[in-house]
């Protein structure tokens, strides 16, 4: 096997093997150390073999990297590493660390796998692994808030799995049992089911990305997890949905109706989440809504590309997602630093950068990401709205910083083990976009540094600052929208479901009584006999 093969396989295999090794008592004592070890093959693969591929024929798994996949794999591995180091410092001595490590490693194997598998069945496998294993990161704290979040998360995740399975099966129709994703996506425009398949893909992957109205689990789930897990969930796991749309949608050939719909959903999500987000009081919930809003923007890029058929949409989306991954990771870890050490000026000042980078603050990685996105988004109405989305992000992130400032001072300084991963993530969120922009999108970072580009990036933010300043006066009058907003509609369902279940049990008891059973037996015989006489 080539170096590429070894590294690609190890990217998924090492976390899985380490998870299995937790069965040994000696390993269990050092469970948290494994979190730091596990992401290295992924990092190495992204750096050393960005065009590598490997086929594990007996298990019909095909692994392949392209520059886009490698960039996301590399940054995701980096954040897994940083968040893992953070978890190692934060959770030292926690009795539940072993279980946390186990699900962490499984989630990691799945999420990194999503970036490098090339065939449909393996993609479904890695996507499901990431989705389902992450459940235990959500419910880790064991509080009632966590278990409610976990229930909503799991219900929607499993629904998403079902929707995607149908989409994948419909895409595989006409090929052999398990075609490569690229082949199936290329065949899609000729399929009579294109509309249905694209809709199913948007629902299935949109659930993972948190597109409104499928976002309800995210503001519940991301805040209740431990800080490093929140960073991974909000930074990395949502990108499984992004890479899914990138890989499966026929972006090159284009599909006007699907693209327009996706753009509309994306823009609506971007604004809706920003507006609901500023009514939230908990910093982590605000960050979760920010992720929803940002993924709305990602959907806008993808939709714009899909509508007209764009060869650059995939890589620009990946570039935008890459920046969000690092910035959101830095923000969640930074929240943890503040929670552990109080709202110190230096920390808060440093948090301003990744926070406003999400709005495209000039000179940050976010400015590059927004600049690249403008190359894909149609400059008309969608473009204007997309520009204004930066204003929404500014208001939302300033709200986040304000909530952060109100965190109580613990009087201690956050331990180095928390500070270092956070600081590295913050630096990476600026440096890496500069380093990979040209490679990924073919655009030079210098283009985003011209006076025109800087002004285009700055004015929506200045507008956001102005709105934010005027909102402070009204802050007390803003309505308090519960976390997960429209999810409260579902709360009433529980009672009805229970009543339905009781009725079902009663009916089953009746069915299982002798008179009903014998009647059913004869009725089945007659029904089959009669239908057999019917003409076909």
């Amino acid at each position: 096997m080539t170096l590429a093969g070894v590294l690609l396989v190890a990217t998924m295999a090492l976390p899985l093997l380490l998870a299995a090794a937790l069965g040994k008592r000696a390993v269990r004592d050092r469970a948290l150390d494994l979190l730091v070890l596990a992401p290295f093959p992924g990092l190495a693969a992204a750096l050393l073999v960005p065009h590598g591929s490997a086929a594990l024929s007996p298990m019909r798994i095909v692994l392949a990297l392209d520059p886009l996949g490698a960039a996301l794999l590399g940054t995701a591995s980096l954040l897994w590493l940083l968040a893992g180091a953070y978890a190692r410092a934060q959770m030292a001595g926690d009795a539940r660390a072993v279980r946390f490590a186990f699900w962490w490693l499984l989630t990691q194997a799945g999420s990194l796998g999503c970036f490098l598998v090339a065939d449909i069945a393996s993609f479904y496998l890695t996507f499901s692994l990431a989705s389902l294993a992450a459940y235990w990161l959500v419910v880790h704290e064991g509080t009632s808030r966590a278990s409610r979040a976990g229930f909503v998360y799991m219900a929607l995740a499993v629904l998403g799995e079902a929707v995607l399975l149908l989409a994948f099966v419909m895409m595989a129709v006409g090929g052999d049992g398990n075609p490569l994703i690229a082949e199936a996506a290329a065949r899609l425009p000729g399929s009579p089911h294109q509309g249905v398949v694209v809709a199913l893909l948007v629902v299935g992957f949109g659930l993972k990305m948190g597109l409104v109205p499928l976002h309800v689990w995210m503001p519940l789930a991301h805040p209740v997890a431990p800080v490093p897990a929140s960073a991974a969930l909000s930074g990395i796991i949502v990108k499984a949905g992004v890479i899914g749309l990138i890989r499966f949608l026929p972006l090159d050939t284009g599909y006007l109706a699907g693209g327009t719909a996706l753009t509309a959903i994306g823009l609506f999500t971007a604004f809706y989440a920003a507006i609901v987000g500023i009514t939230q009081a908990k910093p982590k919930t605000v960050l979760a809504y920010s992720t929803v809003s940002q993924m709305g923007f990602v959907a806008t890029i993808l939709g714009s590309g899909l509508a007209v058929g764009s060869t650059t949409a995939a890589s620009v989306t990946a570039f935008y997602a890459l920046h969000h991954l690092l910035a959101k990771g830095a923000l969640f870890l930074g929240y943890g630093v503040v929670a552990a050490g109080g709202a110190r000026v230096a920390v808060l000042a440093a948090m301003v950068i990744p926070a406003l980078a999400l709005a495209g603050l000039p000179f940050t990685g976010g400015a590059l990401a927004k600049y690249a996105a403008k190359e894909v988004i149609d400059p008309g109405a969608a473009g204007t709205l997309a520009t204004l989305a930066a204003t929404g992000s500014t208001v939302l992130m300033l709200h986040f910083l304000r909530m952060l400032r109100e965190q109580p001072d613990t009087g201690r300084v956050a331990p180095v083990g928390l500070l270092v991963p956070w600081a590295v993530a913050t630096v990476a969120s600026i440096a890496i976009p500069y380093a990979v922009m040209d490679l990924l999108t073919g655009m030079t970072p210098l283009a985003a540094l011209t006076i025109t580009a800087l002004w285009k990036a700055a004015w929506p933010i200045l507008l956001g600052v102005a709105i934010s300043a005027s909102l402070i006066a009204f802050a007390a009058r803003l309505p308090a929208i519960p976390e997960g907003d429209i999810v409260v509609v579902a709360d009433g369902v529980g009672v009805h479901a229970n009543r339905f279940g009781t009725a079902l049990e009663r009916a089953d008891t009746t069915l299982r009584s002798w008179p009903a059973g014998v009647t059913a037996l004869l009725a089945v015989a007659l029904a089959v006999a009669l239908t057999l006489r019917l003409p076909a």
Partner: protein
Amino acid sequence: MNDTAGLLVVLSVMVPAIAVMAMLARPSRAPDQIAALAWPAVTVVTVTLAWTVIGNGAPVTYAVGGWRPPLGLLLRADGLAVVTMVMVSVILGLVGLAARADPAATSGTGGQRRSLVFWAMLLALWSALNLCVLARDLFTLFVALELLTFAAVPLVALDARVETLRAALRYLLIALAGSGLYLLGVGLVYARHATLDLGLLKTVVSGDDGLAIGLMTAGLMAKTAVFPLHLWLPPAHAGAPAPASAVLSALVVKAPFLLLARIWFELGFNTVTPATHLLAGFGAASILWCSLMALRQARLKLMIAYSTVAQIGYLFLMFPLAPGDDWWAQLGWSGGLLQLTSHAFAKAAMFLAAGLVAEGLGHDRIDGLAGASRAAPLSVFTLAFAGLSLMGLPPSGGFNAKAMMLASAVGLGEWWIAVTILAGGLLAAGYVFRVIGRAIAYPDPSVQVTPIARNRELVPFALALFALALGFVPLGQFSVLAIGVAP
């Protein structure tokens, strides 16, 4: 006209029967040792037979007494038969290992009697199961089904408690009523066509035999326990000792289904008709109704039993999918039979693991499962891995099976079947996660658990790994199943 390969066909039915007689002749001798001797013998026979059939690409037949139909009886090992027989060998072998490691399952009060009944009935089942897939005429098949019932009922009542006796009686009565209907149907067929051989009937049956087919179908459905005829299964499968439940749920309910499938597909009802949709409707109702019931169960074994009825429902979805020779139909047929096999391994694993968990905790209430991962950690993994197959998540045989059936349903435009398959997966995820989530939770410090010996956990785990390994079969039609199907 009967060659040595034909002899293997007979041996696969006779050797377990001889072992049963040996046990009954010398009840004082340890019956598990006789079973341990019989297992390799029968397994060698079935594997050699499978090897021959698959190698030649042609079925092996044996005419009893050298007389061919219409005068004589025919036993015939086709692709479906040998695949099933190998599966039965593997599962019975592993369940037998688990039972030997579990003294409580076959001893205790009246230990010797229990032990004798368990092993004798296990081998009698084996003989009956092999005969069910080999026999080619409707009356021999009736005998095989009766043998199966009379071997299965005592397994339910092994504990001899009031509720298990009641469950066993209920099972017996329903199975006999099913047999009655089946026999009535056989009588009608014989009256019209003067033959019971499946090969000969193929050319003469028609829609006019609707009543006969309807009676036989209802009888077999009662024995398979598909909705709304599932009344006997939950108490019977939940009340039996774990190794017995494993065999009952994994294998015994599959035999009448295979016979039903043979009757429908081999007797030329291989077009999509309202009747095939009716059968699929029963399957869909099974999936939805009994998955919801599984979600509502308070006890682990009852939950698993309801899940069996739900998973059997998937098999009935084959009836409108598999008729015909096109690619989608073949995919539906292969997917359905893969579902049968994967469920057999997964469910055997689950019942055995649930037995160990219940032993470790002293109860099997789902609400009180916290601590299971301390008492029997590997068994919790077994439940989770087997659960993957029930949910239809990769990598597992259940995923491949459901993906293939889903593809077939989409390819044939049977959208309601596609939606049912997906909804069944969702509900299965619900009842599996409910158990796993509780089982891995940290227990109250007051909870006392009895640790289970690790080696006893290995057998169920191996069964679950089989179910996972089936996830690596190709996602296409299996040529082996076509052996002997073509006229």
